[in-house]
C-alpha cells in the first residue's frame, strides 16, 4: 500500500508538471506565432493569428485548475502560495520596469509576453514549493 501511495503522490506532481510545461510551450508558440508571423491587418489570417493565444491562455488556466481540484488541503495552500508569489513578483517587475527603463535606458520588455513569463515563473516557484520534504 505504501509504495502505491508514494507512487500516486509522485505521479500527481509529475502529471502536473508535464501538463503545465506543455501548456506553457503551447502558449509561448501561440504568442510567438501571433507576433512574428506577418499578415496584413484585417485579413482572416491576421484575425486568426491575433486570436491564437486565447485558447492557449485558457488551456493553461484549465491545467492549473485541474491540478487544484486533484490535490489535498496542504498542497492547495502551497499552490496558492505559488500563484500569489508569482503574481507579486510579476507585478513588481511590470510596475518597476517603466522607471528602470527611464533611469537606465534599458530596452523595454516585450509586454506582450507577460503571460508567458508569468507561467514560466509559476512553474519554477511551484517546483520549488512542491519539492519533496524530509521528515525531521
Amino acid at each position, binding site marked *: *500500500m*505504501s*509504495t*502505491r*501511495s*508514494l507512487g500516486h*503522490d509522485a505521479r*500527481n506532481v509529475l502529471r502536473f508538471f508535464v501538463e503545465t510545461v506543455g501548456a506553457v510551450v503551447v502558449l509561448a508558440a501561440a504568442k510567438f506565432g501571433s507576433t512574428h508571423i506577418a499578415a496584413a491587418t484585417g485579413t482572416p489570417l491576421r484575425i486568426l493569428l491575433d486570436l491564437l493565444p486565447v485558447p492557449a491562455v485558457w488551456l493553461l488556466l484549465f491545467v492549473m485548475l485541474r491540478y487544484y481540484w486533484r*490535490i*489535498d*488541503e*496542504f*498542497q492547495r*495552500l502551497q499552490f496558492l502560495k505559488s500563484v500569489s508569489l508569482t503574481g507579486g513578483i510579476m507585478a513588481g517587475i511590470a510596475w518597476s520596469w517603466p522607471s528602470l527603463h527611464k533611469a537606465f535606458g534599458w530596452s523595454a520588455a516585450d509586454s506582450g509576453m507577460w503571460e508567458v513569463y508569468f507561467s514560466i515563473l509559476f512553474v519554477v516557484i511551484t517546483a520549488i514549493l*512542491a519539492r*519533496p*520534504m*524530509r*521528515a*525531521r
Partner: protein
Amino acid sequence: MRNTLKELRAERGMTQADLAARLTVSRQTVIAIETGRYDPSLPLAFAIAEVFGRRIEEIFIHKG
C-alpha cells in the same frame, strides 16, 4: 501547535504513506503536519483523531 502524530503512528507501526492513504492525503501533507509546518483543517484533524481512536485535543496540543 504541536502534535503527537509521529508517536501515535510509530506505536501502530504505520508508515507515513500508510497514514496518508488512510486519510486520502499526500505523504507530503502528513510530513508537514508531523513536523509542525502545517496545522490541518478541522475535518482533517477529526479524520486523524478517528484513525487513532483519540480525541483531537489529545493529538494536537496548543503551545500557549
